């Protein structure tokens, strides 16, 4: 898990300048599959974002691990989404609640993108993942 995440985000962490960082984020976004149009429903849309962000958070019942799928119409938000997916996908509920996205984003120098004021849906996504994991545990 953490290995995937580290591998995926290594280039972001090692970026020498902010320009390079954004370039790596956008490249990462390109690796995400495009969500089929049928799944891009209003229900899946994170409300109140300038960029469109669709997201699905589910638990795989047999494996008891998290499955997160998402897409965005902007390059940067899609890249950030890819970071979130790499961070949480495949984790058990216990692992999810112990994984602090804020710390990870801080380490990657991306913390400002996780503030509510950005209104880009990333924070909403993290909140939803954490709520679902906690629900699962209680």
């Amino acid at each position, binding site marked *: 898990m953490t290995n995937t995440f580290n591998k995926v985000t290594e280039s972001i962490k090692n970026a020498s300048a902010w320009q390079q960082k954004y370039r790596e984020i956008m490249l990462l976004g390109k690796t995400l599959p495009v969500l089929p149009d049928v799944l891009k429903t209003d229900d899946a849309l994170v*409300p*109140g974002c*300038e960029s469109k962000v669709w997201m699905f958070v589910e638990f795989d019942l047999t494996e008891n691990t998290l499955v997160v799928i998402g897409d965005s119409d902007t390059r940067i938000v899609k890249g950030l989404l890819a970071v979130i997916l790499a961070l949480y996908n495949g984790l058990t509920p216990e692992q999810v609640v112990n994984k602090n996205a804020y710390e990870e984003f801080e380490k990657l120098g991306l913390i*400002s993108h996780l*503030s*509510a*004021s*950005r*209104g880009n849906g990333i924070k909403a996504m993290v909140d939803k993942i954490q709520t679902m994991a906690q629900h699962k545990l209680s």
Partner: protein
Amino acid sequence: MPALKFDINKIRNDFPTLNQTINGCPLVYLDSAATSQKPQSVIDTMTEFYTFQNANVHRGRHTLSDQATHLYEQVRDKIAQYFNVFSKEIVWTKGATEAINLVTNGLRNRLDENDTIVISVLEHHANIVPWQILSQQTGAKLVTLPLNQDGTLETEQCCEFIKQTKPSLLAITQASNTLGNITNLKPLIKAAKDEGSLVLVDGAQGAMHLKPDLRELNCDFYVCSSHKMLGPTGLGVLYGRYEELNALDIYQSGGEMIDKVYLTHSTYRPAPAKFETGTPNISGVLGFGAALDYLNKLDHAQMRQYEQKLFSYAAQELVKVEGITIYSNLSDNIGTLCFNLNDEHPYDLATLLDGYGVAVRSGHHCTQPLMTHLGVNGTLRASFSFYNTYDDVDIFINSLKKCIALLD
């Protein structure tokens, strides 16, 4: 961090306005019920915003806008914590008056001639006129709680009245702005909730002095104004229990409160956003944040204890002055002395007191029905706050005596 001991000398230095002279005399500011003075940190916060961070909030992709939005939303969390409620239950308004209007407007489609609204004769016009208008618009009856001749509410009698009236809504002040009398809210709210009423509390006077826990108070709506709580003008707070808040009809419309706008119709966001349209008073909100930080740094219990002692002293000295009639309840009061001298017009006395640098208010204090109830045209009002001193009281009383001599 341990609470600081209440140190009035240190506090005085935090309020630049207090350290000035009026007509050559040191200012004795006894008009905090109208508006509070501001600590330096509030002034500095606003200056800093306009100097370094000025930008519009929400939806901005650039750093300044992001910073401004972040700071702005933090203050919503701060006031929610102050009242022990959720951030999403806080709506920014331009003042307590607008907050009440937002609620009366939001209920318009839910009341008819079978409904009864209960208010009290003690209320500020802001908590009377909007209900009158709502009553005229909907046919709902508007009635007042029984009030003793001296301006106090008998708890038992009021609860009984509520039980009989079964109101759809009770709107009541936490403390009278004219008398300073504190309402015994809990039993009244319980009586109203037992009848299934909504309850709105006007906290304009109570929010700072009494720092209520709104969850515990169990009201549905609560309103107050930043400028009476050490904060800037042009900002008020509406708290609403979330389901009740979100159930209110929209008030003002325009940008930000909408989800989608088509030419034919629009869809709206959930509360609190649905009630917040237009560019907000950003610097006002940030300044209010600094005011809340200041209040949180004081130990509230100690501050309140100081206020009560100071008030008792002032009341005790005022009672001794010949010819003075006091209308305030002296035992349960936020710190306001409402009085008259014989049959002198309060205008004269207030004007003369100003000569001695003593700032009191005269008139009906936006409570004409209460004036009628008390059988007067107007009164003087000296309202104290935690930044007032025993010296203030002495100067006030001595000046008052000199003014009385002048009137002879």
